[in-house]
Every structure is written in structure tokens, then in C-alpha cells.
């Protein structure tokens, strides 16, 4: 096995992709669920964390930890279908969202336990989280025990694989049932004892707060919010086969990547506002800015996957340096200062103040494209006129202040919504 892994190493001419991990990011040290993270950036359970060589490379490059790809008890059949990936492209951007019909790891708990202990031996300062999925009570508890015994710092339970969790209702996600969520979570916590347990939930529920409260009752330590969103990635309109096409057939994918960030933000904000559980934020984080956003609505650490699958482990250097520079600029001493910072500003619609605002166009910045004119004419209030010299003029009487013009304007800062 050792020999095999050595052979799998990537040739060294790609060395520029492997910047040595730098230790100047003391400021990023994060305490989360009683564990010490070098930085708030860890890898989410995914193909990126399924092989030991990948994990070693990620740790060498400076990732603070990883959630290993979900494992299960011996004898679990993992019947993968290929190809599994598909992409939502928009305009010129590739992988605005990624679709995946992957299942759990093909490695069972015996193999994963070995890996956990090996990793912890080699990288004692990195956080290794094992992700599990089971059917019966005994499975969940045995998985938890064995993985903690082999040195895992934390257990994450996948209650939300978009292909359906195993167990009570096949094809349905565990985290879509309040009762099942509470029951299974308490089994795992019972087995874990004082060690930290996180439950990975789905945003695809009627009320995320109910699920979070059930987990709070079960006594778990953390929520991983949230998993990929069940989605149909697209249809090939030439032959009406869905993507990714597997002999002309397909199924619903788990949808991740930049496109789902707004869903993740809403999910985490609702959990953080209504429970006291720490949140491990994941879903659509691509850069340090996204991480700051996700932390500001309540996530203590962040997990990345799609961005790494697209651009590689090397993105960690920008994540760390970008966050550090941001914190220095803001005078922050620890990432924990960001956590929940935006929450007080998220309120119900009724609580919003009713101001009179009007669109105000800065002529000095206006390039005269008239895109705001069309948008307001056909999607707003017919409030923007266009002079012969191609200068948009807002009719203050007609302008309702909706802000559509500001959204479509190609020049940042050209259109502002002014309170009158």
C-alpha cells in the first residue's frame, strides 16, 4: 500500500503549485468546539479528502484540517455511477455551481481509522475530522467509537447526502425529519461522550430552525451547515437527456459552488440566530471574502470543497493571507471577532425601516450606456429618462427607489440610493 501511494505522487515540475506552508499567520489561530485550529480553513468531506496522499499535500500546503470523506461500516455497498460531475456555467464563467452524484467513500471504517491515526501521527497539530454515515444505532455508535479511538479530533455525521441517507427512509435525507435527526444525533453523542460531534444538515427543509433545535436537544456540539442543495443540473436540449448523462439517464445532483453561497448564508444565519450551537460553515465559499461573510453570520470555522476541486489546494495561500490582511486592516486580533458580527443586522421584513429612497446617478461616473433606462422602463417604474446627450435623468416623482438601476449599472458606485 505504501508503495502504491508513493507512485501516485504528482511529478515535481508542478512545484510552483506547492508553495511551502508559511507560519506567519499566528493571528488566524481559531478555537472551535474545544479544538485548536491553525486557521479557520479546513477541507470539507469530499473527493479532495478521500486519499491520504491528497490529505498530506493539503496539510503540507497549510490547510488547518480536513473532514475525511464519509465512511461507513464494513460491508456497506458503495455503488458509484460515472461520470458523476456536471457544471453550471454562466456566460464565460465555468463552474458557477458544481453538480455531483457521488456517494460516500469507497473506503470502509477499518481503512479510514488507519488513515486517521497515520495522519494524526504525522500531523499532530492538524485537525482531522471523520465523517460517518450508518443505518442502525449500532453502526453509528461503532463508527463513532472506532474513529475516536484511532485519534479523530471530531466526528461529523452526514445526515444530508443528497443521494439519500441510509436508514429509515431510503432516498430521503435523515436531516429532513426532525424526529429522526434528534434520535440519531443522540445515539452518536451518547457514544462520543465528551468528544465533539457535528451534524451535517441540508438546507432543503421547511424550517431549518426546527432541525437545529432538535440537534441542540440531542446534545451535539456543532452543526455543519450546510450540505449541497439537491438539484437537476440541466437537460441536453438536443436529445432531452439530463446531465450528467449516464447512458442517456441521470438523477438529481448535489449542487455546490459559488451559486449556493446565498443559500448557505441564510441557513447559517437562521441557525445562529435561533440556537447556541457553533456552526462549521460550508457551501459556496470560494475565497477569503466569502469566508468572512459566512463567519459574520455565525460560522466559527469554514469548510471548502468546490473551490479546491476547481483550483486545487494552492488556494489556501490566498485564503490565509487575504483574511490576515483583512483582519489587520479592521484591527481584529482573532477570527472569532468576525463570528456573528452581521447577525444583529439581519432582521425580519416587518422590522425594516420604511425610508423614502431615490436613485441618484453620478454624472461624472456615468458612461451613458442607458442600461438603467431599459431596466427601469421594462422592469421598474419608467422613472429614468434619457437625454439626447445620453445622460440618464431620474424622475423623482416616478422613482420608487427599488434599486434595480443600481443593480444593472456596469459602473460601481455610479448609481446610489439616496434617502430623501
Amino acid at each position, binding site marked *: 500500500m505504501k508503495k502504491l501511494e508513493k507512485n501516485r505522487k504528482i511529478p515535481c515540475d508542478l512545484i510552483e503549485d506547492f508553495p511551502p506552508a508559511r507560519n506567519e499567520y499566528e493571528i488566524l489561530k481559531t478555537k472551535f468546539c474545544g479544538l485548536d485550529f491553525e486557521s479557520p480553513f479546513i477541507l470539507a468531506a469530499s473527493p479532495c479528502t478521500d486519499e491520504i496522499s491528497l490529505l498530506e499535500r493539503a496539510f503540507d500546503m497549510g490547510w488547518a484540517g480536513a473532514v475525511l470523506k464519509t465512511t461507513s461500516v464494513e460491508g456497506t455497498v458503495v455503488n458509484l455511477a460515472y461520470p458523476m460531475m456536471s457544471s453550471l456555467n454562466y*456566460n*464565460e464563467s465555468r463552474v458557477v455551481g458544481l453538480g455531483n452524484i457521488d456517494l460516500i467513500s469507497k473506503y470502509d471504517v477499518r481503512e479510514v481509522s488507519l488513515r486517521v491515526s497515520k495522519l494524526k501521527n504525522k500531523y499532530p497539530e492538524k485537525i482531522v475530522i471523520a465523517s460517518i454515515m450508518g443505518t442502525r444505532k449500532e453502526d453509528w455508535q461503532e463508527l463513532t467509537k472506532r474513529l475516536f479511538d484511532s485519534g479523530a479530533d471530531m466526528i461529523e455525521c452526514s445526515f444530508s447526502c443528497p443521494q439519500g441517507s441510509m436508514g429509515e427512509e431510503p432516498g430521503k435525507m435523515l436531516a429532513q425529519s426532525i424526529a429522526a435527526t434528534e434520535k440519531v444525533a443522540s445515539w452518536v453523542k451518547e457514544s462520543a461522550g465528551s468528544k465533539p460531534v457535528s451534524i451535517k444538515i441540508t438546507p432543503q427543509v421547511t424550517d431549518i430552525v426546527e432541525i437545529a433545535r432538535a440537534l441542540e436537544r440531542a446534545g451535539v456540539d456543532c452543526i455543519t451547515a450546510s450540505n449541497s442543495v439537491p438539484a437537476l443540473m440541466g437537460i441536453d436540449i438536443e436529445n432531452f437527456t439530463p446531465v450528467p448523462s449516464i447512458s442517456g439517464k441521470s438523477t438529481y445532483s448535489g449542487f455546490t459552488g459559488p451559486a449556493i453561497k446565498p443559500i448557505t448564508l441564510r441557513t447559517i444565519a437562521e441557525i445562529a440566530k435561533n440556537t447556541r450551537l457553533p456552526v462549521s460553515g460550508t457551501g459556496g465559499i470560494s475565497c477569503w471574502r466569502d469566508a468572512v461573510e459566512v463567519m459574520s453570520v455565525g460560522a466559527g470555522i469554514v469548510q471548502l470543497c468546490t473551490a479546491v476541486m476547481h483550483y486545487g489546494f494552492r488556494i489556501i495561500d490566498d485564503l490565509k493571507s487575504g483574511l490576515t490582511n483583512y483582519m489587520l486592516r479592521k484591527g481584529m486580533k482573532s477570527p472569532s471577532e468576525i463570528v456573528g458580527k452581521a447577525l444583529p443586522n439581519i432582521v425580519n421584513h416587518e422590522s425594516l425601516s420604511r425610508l423614502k429612497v431615490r436613485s441618484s446617478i453620478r454624472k461624472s461616473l456615468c*458612461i*451613458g*450606456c*442607458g*442600461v438603467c*433606462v*431599459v431596466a427601469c422602463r421594462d422592469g421598474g417604474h419608467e422613472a429614468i429618462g*434619457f437625454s439626447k446627450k*445620453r445622460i440618464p435623468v431620474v424622475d423623482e416623482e416616478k422613482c420608487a427607489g427599488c434599486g434595480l438601476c443600481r443593480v444593472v449599472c*456596469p*459602473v460601481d458606485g455610479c448609481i446610489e440610493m439616496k434617502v430623501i
Partner: protein
Amino acid sequence: MQISNEHSEIKNELQAISESLRCLQCFDAPCTSKCPVHIPVPRFIRMIRSGNTEGSVAVVKESHPFIHTCGEICPDESFCSSICTRGKIDRPVRIRELHRYITNFIRSEQRGSFATEGFKNGKVAVVGAGPAGLSCAKRLALKGVVVDVFEMKEKPGGILFEQIPLFRLSPKILRMDVHEILNTGINLKYKKSIEDIKELAERYDAVFIATGASMPVRARIPGENFENVWTHNDFLKALKEDGSRILKKVEKVVVIGGGNSAVDCALSALHYGARTAEIYYRRGVEEMPAWKNEVSMAIARGVEFHFLCIPVRFAGKKGKLEGVEFIEAKLGKAGEDGRRIPVPVRGSNFFVRCDICVVAIGSKPRFELIGSITGKPEFSFDKKTMRLKGVKGNVFIGGDFAGRGTVVEAVSDGITAAEEIYKLLQKKYGGNRK
């Protein structure tokens, strides 16, 4: 133009979509207003974005009968791209390249038949089968009008066929446009030189004159009859027919003039094998009427420019040219056209040896044509309708004959005149009978 844009050519769908996404989709788009034929640029670009290239082609075709040709030679820097709003953010959208890309797309699948609008009256004569004449003829033919086109030469295309150098416009491309125009069912009569417009105006419901500017302006200095002194029209024509033979063993070509045809002559000379080509212009670089990027392309290709030089005489022996004598000039007061007049500097004469000299100082239309109907050599016309003033009202003019400089403007004239003529016919025969 093809040459200057080699580096920015859009070669595949990926590049086309990428460029089309740069378009801001302006309201009341300035590019469309600036285009002489008002191609709805944002509309055709929007269709490229969605992968609807066929729709995109249809949009451009609707407003332009010479889409292939203009994709190659339209000076978009003077029209759409010059005013593109995107230029205020970074750089203009490469509109002509996108246009060219979609026309490339249909080169393989020409469609032949056309539905006319069903108007079955009227008979119109078009004189000259160049860009203006053919555009007018096509527009009318599509409306169901019978159109007779009279062409002096044996082939259609006018200046495009005769003078635009091959390296700018391949005959294949031109043929595609012309074929499509001829498919509309116009009657093209070759080798028909029209002298009597008056007779034509009586025989037909309307006449459109677009015979171009075929009379080159003379230098009016001694020695113009030497064997190797050419007018730019003849020079370009001859090079197109047999350039390499004419320029065999030619060391130096001197071109007199500062317009686009002067630049064309110099570039063609180099293209067909002349060792050096030099342009002598009597005013300064700022006053040059040639397009800026044409000039920079010529410089890049090795054409030498000499400014403020007025030709004095051609020198030679036994009827053969040996060189040109110039006198240096400085710019004096502004003349009637607002441009400063060059004044010779006394005693600054100098001599330039050369094998061939091309006089490229402009062309004028054959005004006599109109004299037959107006009775006098000068004429005036209504720029909105292209209608000739002072005659019965059924004579229209356009293109270089009306003093235009570009193909796209000529096309625009042809279309304008066609619409006016159609109005006239409707009045005469009463509406659109379907």
C-alpha cells in the same frame, strides 16, 4: 483592414461569445446610430451570446446587402467601434470582428430564394452595379419591383471588383454578396454604358445613378504623359489584374496624395513586389484624410511617408519616367474647406528618382451623365432622400457619385434611395397589392 486586424480576428465560437459578452447592450445604442446602414448591433450581439448565430445573421442581413464584404473592409474605427460605450470602461467591443464571425458562419450554407413583398408594379433603372447600385436594386427587387441594372463593365461589384486590392477583399467574399443580390431576380445588363439619363428617366419610373467616381483628378503638372505615371484608379485596376508583372524589377514607387487610395496604392505596390513605396503628401500628417490605422498599418509594412511636399514636374527621357521633382511646403491660412493650404517654400526643390509614380489625389464622378438631364455640369441633391434636385423628381443618386467615401455609406445611399423610390411607386400605382 483584413491585414490590420489579423491579430484580433475572432476565430471560434468561444472567442465570439467572450467578445459578445463585453457588449453592455446599450439603450438606443450609439453604434447603431453611427452605422450608416444602422445595423442593430446590440441585437445581433445578443443573439451571438445565446448561440443563436442564424438569428444573428438574419438581423444583420436585413439591414445590409453586403454583409460579407463589409465584414472584411468596413472601417469600424470610423463608425460603430469609434463610439462604443464599452470603450469608456476599457476598450470598445470588436463589433466588426463579431459581424465578420457570423458572416463566416454562413459562408458554407448560402440560401438562394427570397420572398418578395408582393408589390408587382413599377420598373426602375439602376446605373452602375457597385455597392450603392446593387444595394438599391436588391432592396427594390425584394419588394417586387422590376429592376434593370446597367453596368459598363463585364462584371458586377464596381469599385469592389475593380480597385479594392485582393489582399483586402478576396473575390470569393465579394461573390457571395453579389450572388445573393443577383438571386433576388434583378436584371443585370453588362457592358451597357449609359450616356442618356434623360431617356432612361422617361422610360423608367425612376432612375438611380451610382456610377462611382471614375474620373481621377489630374495632377496638372508637366510630364503627366510619361509612360510610368499612373492614376490611382488605373494603377489599382492594373495591379489587381497582373500586379506582379507590372512591378517586376521595379525599385521604387512614388505615390502622390494623402487619402486612403494613396495608402492603398503604396501597400499594393509593396504587396506585388516593388522594393520600396513612398507617399508624398502636400500637407502634414494631421491633415491627411487617410484613416489613422491605415496609415499606421502602412508604416508598419514599410511605406515611407513624406509630408509637406508639392509635386512640380515629372522628369524623364524618351517618354519614360525617371523621377519626380517636388518642392517643400509650409502650411498657410485655412482654405474654404477649413484645411490649411500648403504654400511652397522658394528654392527648396528636390528630386526623387523612381520607376513608377502614382497620382492619387482623388476622383470625381462623371458629371456629364447628369448634364444630359439637368443641362448643366453641377448638381445638388437632397441628402435625406438622395433625390436629385432640379429635375422631374424620379432621379436619385448615391455612393461615390454623391461624394461618399466608404462602401457602407454607399450601401446606405442605395437603401435610402430604394425606400424613396418605393414610396414614389406606391403613390403612382397605389399601395401594396398582395
